[in-house]
């Protein structure tokens, strides 16, 4: 309700400013959101279609941003929900058939390169300048802005979700046992082992996601921290089986021994449930755990599925060991190259991504969009949502500087898939070195098929981003 | 009322030429039986008359008009099927009434006519039952009722009695004959059973392999078959065929059998075969045309054969005797009063007036 009021005030203020100053002279006083709304009004009566992850994610456009947008501009927003794994195939298949079925796309940064190369995304620089969004873009967290916004030098999407995997730990347990937050993975092992030795089976030192499709994020992070490089930048031979890489994977296997039995099968829900239930002392998760474990919004119907938290107020936030959290997945907002209403589509993503509106969105109790702007991290209203919220935001902000990007080259899926299979084999008991050798062989095959030169260019483009590797 | 006429009718089933140029006139109000061994095309012919089969060549004419492409429903025929084809989801009443309902006969009249038909067939108590609750004979009655209730131009019967046991079959045969005598409408009846054909028909059409072998009234076909097939088909037990040779004998003509016996031809028949002396033929003798020679009498027109009895089958009214003439096994039907024993020698008289002589080449009666 308060948000709604604030919004009304804002709109009222804009109207007032517009009245007083008149014409374009007022533009400097307008926020990006205001510009978007003003410009979008000429498209009133049209409908924009957006593809969004089904479930919680979609509640934002369905309950909040969609209705607001329509109220402000008269443009309807139609939300096509899709299971997250189906989003990429669906976007690609519609692009292949040139249907223009989706005007606005939610793009996971790792997919962006493939979508751009397939010609599915609209370059946004022209619009950014036309509608005065440069300034507000600068407010987006460095790591997202520098890494997840462009392919080459061209803007293809606005980072819209600060999906950084930070470490959550039980302050009370650490205090009781006199432990300090681990800063290296060796320390992590010792800490986790110490807690497990003392408290298992009631409580284990840690519990991480280990299932296929998720484990590779943790591995990508830790491998690079250990000095692993994905490819040899010149020959494009896969180096995913290098010493650092193997060390990281062996470390993961070793850490598992300090975690609850069966952790190898844990997905997002299992580690969330265990952490909230107080049966693990550490986990590495996306930002929502910070809110949910504190009980923020979990009394709402949308979050009724969240395993109830008994650890509210006892949760500490930190960067994971090594200090370079993975920016795992997350979403950017893009405009489809096949859209028949690109101007309006762009205006919507500018509006939704703007300082003003995004701040409201990341604070929605059911939100799965996590803070990604400097102004979010510094927002007083956000900092006051629960007692430790300030600390939480500070950690996210720190992660938004040092975080590491998901690998993104040509046919990213094939590489992720091969890596995922290899990692899963290791969770099933296979030898890390052998499995990674196989992954490397698979990668080389994919590279060869894509074309070594093409892939080298794509990889260089990715690797030249500041947060591709830790320095 | 010229009745039904078929001209040059052909039917093909793929490569099978089932009906091969039938020319036939069916007399009005008559009882015509199409008879022949299975696969002779008789049912096909009937179905073409009903309009259930397309006529591939030739014409079917009713009252002078070609009806080849007229639908069954417009031909005003009633038909009784071999398996009765009762509608399993309708009561007996509805089964019988169905044809009337399709012709939009008023309800009261329908009811009346159904009851009348049921009375006629002696099944009024079955009207409310469902077909699955009926015995075979009852179903047959219902099937008959379904046809009779109609006031059709023609009644068609497709082997209606073949699924009944012997006794019921005899009863129903009589019943059908009586019905025809009462109704005096055109009936066409298909059967493979020559007894039914003989007893029911005003006129028999004997078919084989899609062509008419012979047509005429029953006794004509029985007494004067035109070929071996007709001779062998009608009559039960079937006619015996024995290879023989025509020879001149004592100034007359005779037929020499394999056992060297010579059977003299009656005077009236001699002239017909005068130029055939020395010719090898088949002689056809019906079992009922052989008699015991009790007194050794010589009757004109009969020839004597001496045989050794092999098997004796007493049937009550008659006794069947089996013996050999040369290589051929022969059956004779004798009066029942004396009991022969196997192995017994016996003299038989053959009625040479009714024996048929057949050219083995052409299979035709000469």
């Amino acid at each position, binding site marked *: 309700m308060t948000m709604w009021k604030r919004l009304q005030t804002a709109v009222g203020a804009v109207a007032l400013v517009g009245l007083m100053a008149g014409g374009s002279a007022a533009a400097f006083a307008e926020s990006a959101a205001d510009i978007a709304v003003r410009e979008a009004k000429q498209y009133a009566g049209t409908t924009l279609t957006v593809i969004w992850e089904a479930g919680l994610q979609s509640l934002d456009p369905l309950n909040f941003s969609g209705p607001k947008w329509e109220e402000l501009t008269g443009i309807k927003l139609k939300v096509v929900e899709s299971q997250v794994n189906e989003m990429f195939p669906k976007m*690609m298949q519609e692009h292949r058939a040139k249907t223009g079925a989706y005007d606005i796309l939610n793009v996971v940064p790792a997919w962006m390169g493939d979508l751009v190369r397939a010609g599915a995304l609209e370059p946004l620089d022209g619009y950014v300048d036309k509608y005065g969004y440069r300034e507000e873009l600068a407010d987006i967290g460095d790591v997202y802005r520098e890494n997840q916004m462009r392919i080459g030098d061209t803007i293809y999407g606005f980072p819209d979700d600060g999906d950084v995997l930070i470490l959550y730990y039980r302050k009370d347990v650490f205090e009781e046992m006199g432990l300090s937050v681990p800063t290296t993975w060796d320390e992590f092992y010792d800490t986790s082992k110490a807690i497990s030795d003392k408290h298992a089976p009631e409580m284990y030192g840690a519990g991480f996601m280990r299932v296929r499709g998720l484990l590779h994020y943790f591995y990508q992070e830790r491998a690079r921290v250990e000095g692993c490089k994905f490819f040899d930048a010149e020959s494009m031979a896969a180096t995913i089986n290098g010493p650092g890489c193997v060390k990281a994977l062996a470390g993961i296997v070793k850490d598992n021994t300090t975690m609850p039995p069966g952790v190898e099968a844990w997905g997002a829900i299992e580690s969330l*449930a265990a952490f909230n239930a107080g049966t693990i002392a550490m986990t590495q998760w996306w930002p929502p755990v910070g809110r949910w474990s504190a009980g923020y919004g979990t009394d709402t119907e949308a979050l009724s599925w969240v395993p109830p938290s008994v650890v509210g107020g006892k949760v500490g936030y930190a960067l994971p060991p090594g200090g370079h959290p993975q920016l795992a997945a997350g979403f950017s907002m893009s405009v489809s190259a096949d859209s028949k209403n690109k101007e309006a589509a762009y205006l919507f993503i500018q509006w939704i991504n703007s300082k003003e509106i995004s701040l409201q969105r990341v604070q929605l109790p059911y939100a799965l969009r996590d803070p990604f702007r400097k102004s979010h991290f510094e927002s007083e209203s956000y900092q006051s949502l629960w007692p430790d919220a300030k600390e939480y935001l500070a950690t996210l902000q720190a992660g938004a500087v040092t975080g590491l990007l998901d690998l993104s080259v040509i046919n990213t899926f094939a590489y992720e898939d091969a890596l995922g299979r290899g990692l899963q084999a290791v969770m099933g008991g296979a030898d890390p070195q052998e499995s990674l050798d196989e992954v490397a062989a698979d990668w080389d095959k994919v590279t060869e098929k894509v074309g070594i030169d093409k892939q080298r260019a794509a990889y260089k483009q990715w690797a030249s981003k500041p947060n591709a590797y830790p320095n | 009322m010229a009745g039904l006429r078929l001209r040059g009718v052909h039917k093909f089933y793929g490569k099978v030429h089932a009906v091969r140029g039938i020319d036939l006139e069916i007399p009005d109000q008559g009882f015509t039986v199409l008879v022949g061994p299975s696969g002779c095309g008789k049912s096909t012919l009937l179905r073409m008359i009903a309009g259930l089969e397309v006529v591939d060549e030739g014409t079917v004419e009713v009252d002078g*008009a070609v009806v080849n492409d007229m639908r069954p429903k417009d031909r005003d025929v009633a038909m009784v099927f071999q398996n009765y084809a009762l509608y399993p989801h309708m009561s007996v009443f509805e089964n019988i009434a169905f044809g009337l309902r399709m012709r939009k006969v008023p309800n009261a009249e329908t009811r009346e006519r159904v009851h009348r038909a049921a009375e006629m067939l002696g099944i009024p108590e079955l009207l409310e039952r469902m077909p699955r609750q009926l015995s075979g004979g009852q179903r047959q009655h219902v099937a008959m009722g379904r046809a009779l209730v109609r006031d059709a131009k023609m009644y068609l019967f497709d082997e209606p009695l073949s699924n009944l046991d012997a006794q019921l079959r005899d009863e129903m045969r009589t019943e059908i004959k009586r019905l025809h005598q009462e109704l005096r409408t055109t009936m066409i009846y298909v059967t493979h059973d020559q007894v039914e054909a003989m007893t029911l028909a005003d006129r028999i059409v004997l078919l084989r392999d899609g062509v008419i072998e012979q047509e005429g009234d029953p006794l004509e076909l029985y007494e004067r078959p035109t070929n071996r097939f007709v001779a062998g088909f009608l009559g039960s037990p079937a006619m015996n065929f024995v290879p023989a040779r025509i020879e001149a004998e004592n100034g007359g003509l005779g037929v020499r059998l394999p056992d060297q016996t010579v059977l003299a031809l009656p005077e009236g028949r001699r002239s017909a075969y005068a130029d055939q002396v020395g010719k090898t033929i088949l002689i056809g003798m019906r079992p009922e045309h052989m008699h015991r020679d009790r007194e050794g009498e010589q009757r004109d027109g009969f020839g004597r054969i001496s045989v050794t009895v092999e098997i004796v089958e007493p049937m009550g009214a008659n006794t069947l005797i089996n013996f050999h003439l040369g290589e051929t096994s022969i059956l004779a039907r004798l009066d029942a009063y004396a009991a022969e024993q196997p192995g017994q020698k016996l003299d038989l008289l053959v009625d040479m007036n009714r024996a048929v002589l057949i050219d083995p080449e052409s299979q035709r009666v000469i």
Partner: protein
Amino acid sequence: MTATTMRVGQRANLFADRNFKWLVIAPSIIVLLVVGIYPLVYTGIVSFQQITMMEEDTSWAGFMNYAALFSDGRLWESFGHTFLILAIALPIELVLGLLMAQLFLEKLPGKQVFIALLIIPTVISPIVAGSTWRLMFDNQYGPVNQIIGWFAGEPTAILWITRPEWVYPAILICEVWQWTPFMFLILLAALSNVDRSLIEAAEIDGASFWKIFFRITLPVIRPVMVIAILIRALDLFRIFDIIWAMTKGGPGSITETISIYTYIRAFKEFETSYAGAIAFLVIILLSVIVIFALKRVEIAR
């Protein structure tokens, strides 16, 4: 009826009767052609081109994609996985179904109720079936490990979906659970239709129960079993939904079936041409098997 009116009617009927059989079957054939032919032609054409996610390169590639099939180990493994599931699930379903049918063959109180309830797994959507078994097999929150724990006397945490040695049992249990009732129902009907006098004759001849079962009953119900096996074999060859809901082909690629692998190549990697070659291979293989099997069934009709 006069000759002239008859001739008019004649022509109309001639058309209707001579073409009636084609008229009534035409709509179905048209629908099947509309939906069936284009995909076939498209698949055939693209499989000779070089369309990938990046480039819609429609230039002629000859048999390049087909040649690549032979060196695609993952494809042949997926064939292997498919046949592995088929080879294990089908006999189990058949034998279990047969045993259950024997059990329910005789009078049993509430028989119809039993049958009505037993049929539920078969009519459930495979996606739901897979989801249900994911719940059941969850290593922490599922009842399967709990029950095993009771028998084992200690807590069990078998990683059904994650461990290569457990994932097949998990999938097979789900598959067998869903389709054994199907076999059961068919075989029960088949057994019920066996002519009792055959069994009695064999009994009089002094055959034991098992002799009767193997020498008389089985041969008599064989035609039905053949059809049932055929139906299930073809279903299993296409198996997708259950695996999709349970493992998506994991762990590793250890449970990737032909359908799952085709999906990955076609929709995850958008190797349109290559996926076209796989599709064509599958269609040809199936056509040969299906037509061969159907000819036999048709002849037996």
